[in-house]
């Protein structure tokens, strides 16, 4: 090449212009960061959603923090987060391992497992509303009296129904993540274990589980932070009821803002939602160690 080494080094050290990131940054600032600041600001105002926005000090915060419904919404959110994690994580992990194997029938099953990924939350909720009907749904259809309960009308049961439907909709996605993770585990590890006479269960606990550490963290983070976003499913399925028994925090925010027309209080609830999301993400990040990418390379 005719280029001298000094000038070629100068050419190579030139990184791309920051302008390439500008369009993405612009959209993100305008519709995510500015609204984020806006939700803090609006929590100190009074606004019905149509008229003037008036500064109102801490009154929205006082309303929100003294309202027992807020505490209830936090409690419902925590319960759904906990139970849906406990239900989804083991099922998706096991299904991920199951579908990663190469038997033909498992591949066929996997094709069907992933179908719920295609459905919108609204569609899933509407389908389950019909399916859970005590008179025209699954219970009478199969002739099993236990299944013919008023699932969505019984405040003791409805939370578990919501957890089940959430699992139905989101396990496929996490199965997919685990399937990908299992397929990246080097085959040599299993071959060595087999030579050593390790059984299937032993292999699972000694190889599969430790090798999936970072997949588990990714999936768990998405699951836990994602459970702050189960708005549409619960909104269509139960509307937060009966009573307040499934009124999750995001749903409570929506109903406060757009049904009770108290945007100030709704914004305060939005701030709480942001803070919880950030805190959870930070905790999970800590649990997972600092340099995820480097450690993942070590594993491979």
């Amino acid at each position: 090449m005719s280029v001298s080494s000094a000038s070629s080094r100068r050419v190579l050290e030139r990184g791309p212009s920051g302008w390439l990131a500008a369009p993405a940054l612009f959209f993100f600032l305008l519709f995510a960061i500015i609204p984020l600041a806006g939700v803090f600001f609006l929590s100190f105002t009074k606004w019905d959603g149509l008229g003037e926005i008036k500064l109102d000090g801490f009154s929205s915060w006082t309303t929100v923090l003294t309202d027992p419904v807020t505490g209830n919404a936090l409690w419902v959110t925590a319960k759904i987060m906990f139970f849906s994690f406990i239900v989804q994580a083991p099922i998706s992990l096991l299904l991920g391992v199951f579908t990663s194997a190469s038997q033909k029938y498992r591949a066929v099953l996997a094709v069907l497992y992933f179908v719920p990924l295609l459905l919108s939350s609204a569609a899933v909720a509407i389908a389950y509303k019909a399916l859970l009907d005590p008179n025209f749904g699954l219970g009478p259809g199969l002739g099993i009296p236990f299944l013919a309960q008023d699932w969505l009308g019984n405040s003791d049961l409805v939370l578990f129904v919501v957890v089940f439907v959430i699992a139905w909709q989101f396990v496929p996605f996490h199965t997919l993540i685990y399937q990908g993770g299992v397929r990246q585990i080097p085959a040599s590890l299993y071959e060595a274990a087999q030579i050593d006479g390790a059984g299937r269960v032993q292999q699972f606990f000694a190889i599969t589980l430790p090798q999936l550490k970072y997949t588990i963290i990714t999936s768990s983070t998405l699951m836990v932070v994602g459970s702050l976003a189960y708005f549409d499913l619960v909104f269509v399925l139960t509307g937060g009821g009966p009573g307040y028994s499934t009124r999750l925090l995001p749903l409570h925010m929506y109903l406060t803002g757009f049904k009770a027309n108290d945007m100030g209080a709704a914004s305060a609830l939005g701030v709480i939602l942001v803070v919880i999301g950030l805190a959870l993400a930070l905790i999970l990040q800590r649990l997972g160690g600092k340099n995820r990418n480097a450690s993942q390379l070590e594993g491979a």
Partner: protein
Amino acid sequence: MASTTQIPVPPATRVAPSSKPSKQGRGRGRARPNFLGGLGGWLWLAVIIVPIYYVVVTSLKNQAGFFTSNPMLPPAEPTLDNYKLVLENDFAMYFVNSLLVTVGSVVPALLVSFMAAYAIVRGKSRFLGWTNKLFLLGLAIPLHATIIPIYWMITKAHLYDTLLALILPSIAFAIPISVLILSNFMRDVPNELFESMRLDGCSDWAMMWRLALPMTRPAVVTVGIYNALGVWNGFLFPLILTQSPSTRVLPLSLWTFQGEFSVNIPAVLASVVLATLPLLVIYVVARRQLISGLTAGFSK
């Protein structure tokens, strides 16, 4: 000549984690049939299939049949009247709206995220590092908590009840995960390839499209699918930012349909089937691409 920069891509360096693993499952699966695993697998299949079966079967019943026949049995006289009713209720318009919003959000989101990911991975400036951190922050925040300021901005910009009101925030919300996945993949492109192109006098713009894009195609597909699913099935933005039937998208139409035809469960379920059908067709046609794309993107 500089213009003849053809980068030969050795198959081994192609960025596709799914191609790395060998068939380790084979060794494990052959050893001894896993009855317990198989049983669990079929059980989960039942959990997935029963609701889908119920929805399809019920959508083919007439109203009298729905009230009198066994809910889990196929109709004695299958009818497509419910589908006709749904199609007559502006289904095509909602479909086109959904399509416009999905394409209108996903294509620009992919474009700006790809450019940003390229700049972040190849660039060295502090500004780009800071931009990347901001996007990562966006992953931790439940962005829908900012819906109230977004609602305010959209009304102030006189975009309320337009498709653009759905498109703009959807682009912004898609950026963090898109940049994360794309930049993870772009880091795997060997630096020497960029350097040799740079020495040949290529601009960043040319390197982005002629080297980075072909090398990260699996990631681009992943991000495109993931975002398209999210936007197509999105419910919160349409619920809050649109109002009239002319801007209604499919998930919202299911919900309003459920309100209008609440007694006609078969018709409501027919609308669920119709709304899912387009994605199901894509899934059947491009299943391999879809699943391997999603797996590759998230198990990195």
